[in-house]
């Protein structure tokens, strides 16, 4: 689906990410997803009368890391109260940064070379979670509601992009790249399915060269796929509306994943007046240079840099290899690739093995030392293990650790001796004279025939490259 000629979409994203702090933003309660309801609570996050918030230093560390990774300016900031009544909000106001956020400005460069500006990345507290039972299943009209305050007060950073995104695919790429950055900073686990990251998209359309149109905000998108589909749908809806002579109303819209549609949640005119004002229970936040320097020094390299370093190890990488590199970076497993490159100078096979075999069993990579990985890949590169054998050995080490050489030996994956391979090839040539003749006359496809036959006879122990070398030597 694309927009009709002459139309352009203008998209800005607001991304909420939960921070991986040990405790909540303003109290000592555990910040943990999946606990029994209302077990990680105390007078402060429950907003009991008389309780007071105290800012969590670790949350400030994470917020600054995010800002630094996005090239933001870190400035003295304040906390405000955003006042509105809602049962999952224990104080009936949310503490959030408003006119003076900790991070302002910045940008994010996407792999395709485009740049999306960042307006701000500010800190705020999360709300609790309501479950509405019976009736309509939503707040209004439910028979009863239950609230779990475990999430109430969990630290969030909201990252607001400029209106620089011009396609739903670019929006998805931005969100994915941002996710990689948040994981790299250690600030987030990037688990969309647990709500660790949530997206709001501001979408408008215009004819090329015209000023920005009226925007609609789509709330609470929680997967990259929903994000892309919702933006696509919403932009098309607006174009069709405008081409039919209608006008776009500024409003907040809800994305229905099953219907694949957005619908009106509330129109701007009856939007809440949040009566923001400085929270008098908190003091100004102004991390000094020494604090900022400490945070910066502890910052790991970002995905773009790491991606560049792995790609540089590949000779003329194919698109498939670049996709594989993406998987390697996403999983943060490039140390295996670098170790192989250091040992042999050739990272191509290592990228493939990480993006396939390691990615398939990522929960067990702790069992696989870089040394074991290097040893396995080198055996394969040298022809001592076939591809199938190498995968088997990696699978074994991932499952239960152990030495790859010993595993290869125990599986009988000893290298076929040159003599055995030679005599096997010789006997096959004798058995298939016609095929051998055609191969000698230049039909390269027949090489695969002979490799297949060798594999059959040796039960997969031979190395394909070694077979070709043997065939060519006899050609």
């Amino acid at each position, binding site marked *: 689906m694309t927009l009709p000629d002459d139309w352009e979409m203008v998209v800005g994203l607001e991304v909420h990410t939960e921070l991986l702090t040990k405790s909540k933003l303003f109290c000592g309660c555990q910040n943990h997803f999946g606990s029994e309801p209302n077990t990680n609570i105390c007078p402060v996050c429950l907003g009991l009368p*008389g309780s007071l918030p105290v800012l969590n230093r670790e949350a400030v560390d994470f917020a600054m890391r995010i800002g630094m990774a996005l090239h933001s300016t870190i400035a003295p900031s304040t906390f405000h109260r955003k*006042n509105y009544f809602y049962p999952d909000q224990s104080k009936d106001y949310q503490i959030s940064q408003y006119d003076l956020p900790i991070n302002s400005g910045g940008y994010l460069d996407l792999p395709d070379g485009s740049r999306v500006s960042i307006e701000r990345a500010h800190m705020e507290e999360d709300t609790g979670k309501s479950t509405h039972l019976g009736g309509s299943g939503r707040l209004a009209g439910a028979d009863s509601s239950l609230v779990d305050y475990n999430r109430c007060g969990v630290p969030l950073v909201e990252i607001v992009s400029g209106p620089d995104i011009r396609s739903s695919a670019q929006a998805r790429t931005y969100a994915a790249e941002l996710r990689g950055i948040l994981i790299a900073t250690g600030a987030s686990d990037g688990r969309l399915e647990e709500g660790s990251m949530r997206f709001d998209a501001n979408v408008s359309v215009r004819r090329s060269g015209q000023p920005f149109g009226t925007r609609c905000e789509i709330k609470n998108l929680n997967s990259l796929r929903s994000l892309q589909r919702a933006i696509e749908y919403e932009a098309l809806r607006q174009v069709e509306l405008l081409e039919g002579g209608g006008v776009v109303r500024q409003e907040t819209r809800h994305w229905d994943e099953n219907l694949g549609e957005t619908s009106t949640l509330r129109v701007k005119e009856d939007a809440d007046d949040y009566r923001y004002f400085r929270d008098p229970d908190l003091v100004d936040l102004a991390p000094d240079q020494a604090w900022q320097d400490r945070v910066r020094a502890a910052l790991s390299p970002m995905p773009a840099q790491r991606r560049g370093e792995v790609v540089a190890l590949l000779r003329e990488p194919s698109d498939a290899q670049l996709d594989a590199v993406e998987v390697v970076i996403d999983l943060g497993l490039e140390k295996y690739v670098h170790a192989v490159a250091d040992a042999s100078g050739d990272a191509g096979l290592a990228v493939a093995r990480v993006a396939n075999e390691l990615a398939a069993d990522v929960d067990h990579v702790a069992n696989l030392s870089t040394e074991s990985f290097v040893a396995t890949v080198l055996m394969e590169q040298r022809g001592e293990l076939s591809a199938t054998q190498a995968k088997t050995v990696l699978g074994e080490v991932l499952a239960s650790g152990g030495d790859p050489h010993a595993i290869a030996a125990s599986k009988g994956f000893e290298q076929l001796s040159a003599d055995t391979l030679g005599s096997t090839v010789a006997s096959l040539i004798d058995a298939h004279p016609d095929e051998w003749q055609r191969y000698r006359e230049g039909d390269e496809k027949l090489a695969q025939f002979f490799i297949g036959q060798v594999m059959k006879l040796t039960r997969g122990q031979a190395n394909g490259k070694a077979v070709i070398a043997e065939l060519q030597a006899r050609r």
Partner: protein
Amino acid sequence: MKSATQIAADVRSGASSAAAELERTLSVIAERNEELNVFLHVDIDGARAAAADVDARIANGDNVGPLAGVPIAIKDNLCQVGIPTTCSSKILEGWRPPYNATVIERIVAAGAVPVGKTNLDEFAMGSSTENSAFGPSRNPLDPTRVPGGSSGGSAAAVASNMTSLSLGSDTGGSIRQPAALCGLVGVKPTYGLVSRYGLIAFASSLDQIGPFSKTVADSALLLEVLAGHDPKDSTSLPEASPSLVAHVNDGVAGQRIGLVRELFDGADESVVTAVRAAAAALREAGAKIVDLSIPELELTLSAYYLIAPAEASSNLARYDGVRYGLRVKADDVTAMMEATRTAGFGAEVKRRIMLGTYALSAGYYDAYYGQALKVRTLTINAFARAYEQVDLLLGATTPSVAFKFGAKTADPMAMYLNDVFTIPTNLAGDPALSVPFTTGEEGLPIGVQLLGPGRSEARLFAAARVLEIADGRP
């Protein structure tokens, strides 16, 4: 009636016991509480257990602390584990805090025996306790008159000899005004000197907890225990508790004290006379009295009645029936919240929530709340300039002696004007105290107010002690 200093000394020396002091307190409460409506809740069992604990520790040779065995009354907007805490509001019906305010932890650690919770204007909004959902407290010196407010119950507890000490909170004069009307010493400390953790917020940027007592030395004794950094309050000052008791008799020789026209202009003649007499007494004791005018102070009442309600409108949002306190059943959650708040809050609280909501609303913020913040800055700067010329300031605490019930309830502005002399220091964050000095109409006490720059409590106590002696209470 023994002073707290004397009770603690007697309990420590074995001349008395915590249990005996408590029983005396309980007997006065039993005698007078029904008439005066001072305590909303008396924790007889808890207090007896606490007193027994103090006596056991003394028998054991432990160092029990500076408030050993002193019964103390607690304003009912301070959280104490398991004790009903109402803020004199129906909306907190049935709520018992699961945690202690920092000040409760500190007084108990110092050997004090909390005896119960005292009446106040609902959520500390008022100047007479007439806004309490549980009826007003009466002034022990004349039960036809108000004890002042909002900490009227805590003032009446000490004035009626139920206890020698009590805790109040002061947002715009809620300690100093009832102290003046009940003939007591009452202190509003420097903002941040005493932790607000566990004080149910009215206006967070103005609220401070402080002591009531009959003597200057007793207030100094209690404030020393209350003060000092608390990591649970982000606005708590970083330093440890200052030395106060040791400086009570420092005198005022060589001190420059500003007599501020705006802090007594418009007060009753008896009050103005008392303030001038206090100035003369301080001069007599060696202070240099300087006549001052700080015109900015005339703007502070208006600014206060925007800032305090604005903060209150947000602080009181949480009383929505969802988690604790009153819940009025309704068809859906929004209707339940509305019905609960409609039934649970009294008229003055509703008035201030509406004022504050309006002052913060889009389109009005700059004209009201924003403007009030500017006045606050002007006030801070004006006080700072005054303190370049003088060490302390002197004025009235209230425009009149204690007034009769109903005298000001018909007109909210008349009631608000009662705080005109006390509000400026809350906006500035500076300390001030009220000390009884002479009497006025019907022999009722008059309080004069001493104000100082941040962290000047020791100097304030020394000057108050000079007035105490000059007023015939050596």
